[in-house]
């Protein structure tokens, strides 16, 4: 009984600590509620899809897919092409996905094969693989684009004639998905003001009398994310999902039951990579600018940190973890610099603090996982003892 209680605490310790930190930091930051809600909604729309892409490899027992940056890179290549061709709006986004998909699939297959060669070390391998592919990506984007790969738009290219600029404006698709179904929540007062400014356009105006301030909701993005959640729920119910769960728990048993273990693991990574590709495209349409050489790096780290803060572990993660994580992580992300500034007079401290938290939380989650696994292994050995051994 006590143990059970302890387990519940232990299993939700991470989110609990973050709720506590936020409870202290929010008042300190001095942000208004509507500002926070607006920021959070934006960030949920921006990041959830990326984080959701991590779920499937966890299900297949492959740990946190640090190789999701591969998918992010594929997405960025898709975006570079549509920028070059000048495809804008929703068609541009869809086309970017369409271009990114085959690249993501190829990278995913490659990643899957590598990970099958490094069983038991998936995480560190996929992490290094991210760096390796980053090298290849940089070579492609910095040297081959504009030289072998036809990129002609001078806004994209470096002045030397080849290679892509460090920052690429995605003005053509900026927020197109977020604003596809423009929705605003406000109070009646705010509604009046809003209509005065924007005119009676095709807005969904939701009026809440007690609400303070005016916030926009990226409804279309949320719908996509919701569809994706439905996809994951459905996927879990499929034979493939069942096989992945089986492999995640015991590769040897799954293998002896005739499940193609290696192939299934590759499929898991491919799905994750492709989804990360779409996730990155959604993320960047919100941001509106592409940092050609480091957008993807951060995508991986922040997504993983957010998922872990949501209470997921290396071997178990749910959709709830994703949303709890994205809210808590970004809440901290928004308030930490301000809170740091107001507390110590140094915004820099808050900046560093949130970086520290991102890395620290991953470290702690990995430690807890390894620790727990080693303990479970011990326990499993003990259970083999059977009977009354040890009592004599």
């Amino acid at each position, binding site marked *: 009984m006590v143990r059970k209680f302890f387990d519940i605490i232990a299993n939700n310790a991470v989110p609990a600590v973050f709720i506590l930190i936020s409870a202290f930091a929010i008042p300190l930051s001095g942000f208004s509620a509507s500002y926070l809600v607006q920021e959070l909604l934006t960030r949920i729309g921006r990041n959830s899809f990326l984080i959701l892409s991590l779920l499937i490899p966890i299900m297949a027992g492959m740990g946190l897919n640090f190789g999701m940056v591969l998918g992010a890179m594929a997405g960025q290549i898709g975006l570079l092409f549509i920028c070059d061709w000048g495809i804008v709006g929703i068609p541009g986004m869809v086309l970017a996905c369409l271009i990114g998909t085959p690249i993501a699939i190829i990278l995913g297959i490659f990643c899957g094969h590598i990970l099958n*060669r490094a069983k*038991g070390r998936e995480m560190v391998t996929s992490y290094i693989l991210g760096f390796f592919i980053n090298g290849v990506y*940089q*070579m492609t984007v*910095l040297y081959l684009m504009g030289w072998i790969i036809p990129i002609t738009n001078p806004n994209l290219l470096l002045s030397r004639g080849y290679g892509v600029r460090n920052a690429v404006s995605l003005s053509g698709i900026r927020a197109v998905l977020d604003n596809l179904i423009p929705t605003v929540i406000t109070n009646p007062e705010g509604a009046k003001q809003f209509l005065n400014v924007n005119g009676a356009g095709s807005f969904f105006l939701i009026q809440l009398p007690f609400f303070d301030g005016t916030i926009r909701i990226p409804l279309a993005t949320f719908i996509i994310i919701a569809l994706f959640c439905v996809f994951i729920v459905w996927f879990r119910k499929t034979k493939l999902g069942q096989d992945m769960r089986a492999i995640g728990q015991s590769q040897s048993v799954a293998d002896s039951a005739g499940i193609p273990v290696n192939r299934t693991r590759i499929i898991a990574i491919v799905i994750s990579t492709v989804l990360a590709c779409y996730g990155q495209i959604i993320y960047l349409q919100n941001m509106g600018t592409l940092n050609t050489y480091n957008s993807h790096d951060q995508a991986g780290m922040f997504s993983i940190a957010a998922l872990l803060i949501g209470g997921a572990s290396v071997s178990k993660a749910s959709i709830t973890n994703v949303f709890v994580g994205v809210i808590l992580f970004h809440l901290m992300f928004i308030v930490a610099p301000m809170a740091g500034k107001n507390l110590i007079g*140094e915004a820099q401290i808050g900046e560093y603090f949130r970086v*520290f938290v991102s890395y620290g939380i*991953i470290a702690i989650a990995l430690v807890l996982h390894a620790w727990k696994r080693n303990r479970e292994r011990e326990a499993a050995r003990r259970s083999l003892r059977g009977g009354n051994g040890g009592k004599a």
Partner: protein
Amino acid sequence: MIKNFIKNAGWPRIIIGLFLLALFITAPFVGVNVFTSFNNTIVRFGMNGVMVLAMIPMVQAGCGLNFGLPLGIIAGLLGATLSIELNTEILAKLAELGIRYKISWLTREFLTAYREPAGFASAILIAIPIAAVLGWLYGKLLNRVKGDEMMIATYVGFSSVSFMCIAWLLLPYKHPTMVWGYAGRGLRTTISVEGYWLHILNDWLSLNFQDKIEIGGKILDVNLSIPTGMLIFFAVMAFIVWIFMRTKTGTAMTAVGSNPEFARASGVNVDKMRTISVMMSTILGAIGIIVYEQSFGFIQLYMGPFYMALPAVASILLGGASVNKATILNVVVGTFLFQGILTMTPTVFNSVFQTDMSEVIRLIVSNGMILYALTRKVRA
């Protein structure tokens, strides 16, 4: 014969060795001064050697590649900054002692003359206990997470670097050359060691050649400056590691890495050996960064140490080490090859393609090397 050589050296090493050789051969034809490049390679070899050396104990004890090297680097940075902070105070105290106890040689003149070596030595001496404590804690942690050391080491390194970012801002350093001028507190991102111990090892016993030689009708400036002191320092550190691996403890450590079950059945305390190896690795990392700084000229704080483990890891793997076996020879060969490529690719590629691909090549070579090592079939 050749087959045997290939087998012993391993394909990746041969390919990269040939690549480096090709770079050295092409260099003169594209107008790159080979001597300068070679000299740079040697200097960078000396700078990075000790940090690569830090990989040996942990690899040998079966803790895998020390992706947590930044932890040792942090200890080194603390040692370096503290030595500068306290430099004048310590020297004043020593002079006082000299006067009080009438130690004839411990005079102000003596201290001024040896201020720089003393500063360097004190940096190392301060860093070692800090590294030992951090390494001990880190070792304890790694003992609890057997099987996942590398990933956890990576993130322990990252989180400690980001934690120290906060600490650098808050620690009560006062020395005017180190803190931000406008705020009067918080350490700068880069601190020059000029006037403290810049090039103290590089210049010690350094051999300088200056000549002009004619090759194929071209006059070539030969401007060599071999950092003998730094190489000697590396050799001494390597020798210490070599000796240590031959002691009773070192032998036990190797056995732990080779087969922990065997070691346990032979009465060896496996966890203790692993902890010692992690401490050693951390201490070597701390010394390594100080050696690096005295040559580089700056102490890089904040996110500086962030990715410093990767080149060291890649170097030793390039030298032929595996995830659980490494020798001094691996360190020497690997560091030379890696730093050679790092110095040669930008210069040669710049001359040939008029573009600097060195960063990309570094990324691909170093991470490719680590990937290769990770996916190699290890004895089950």
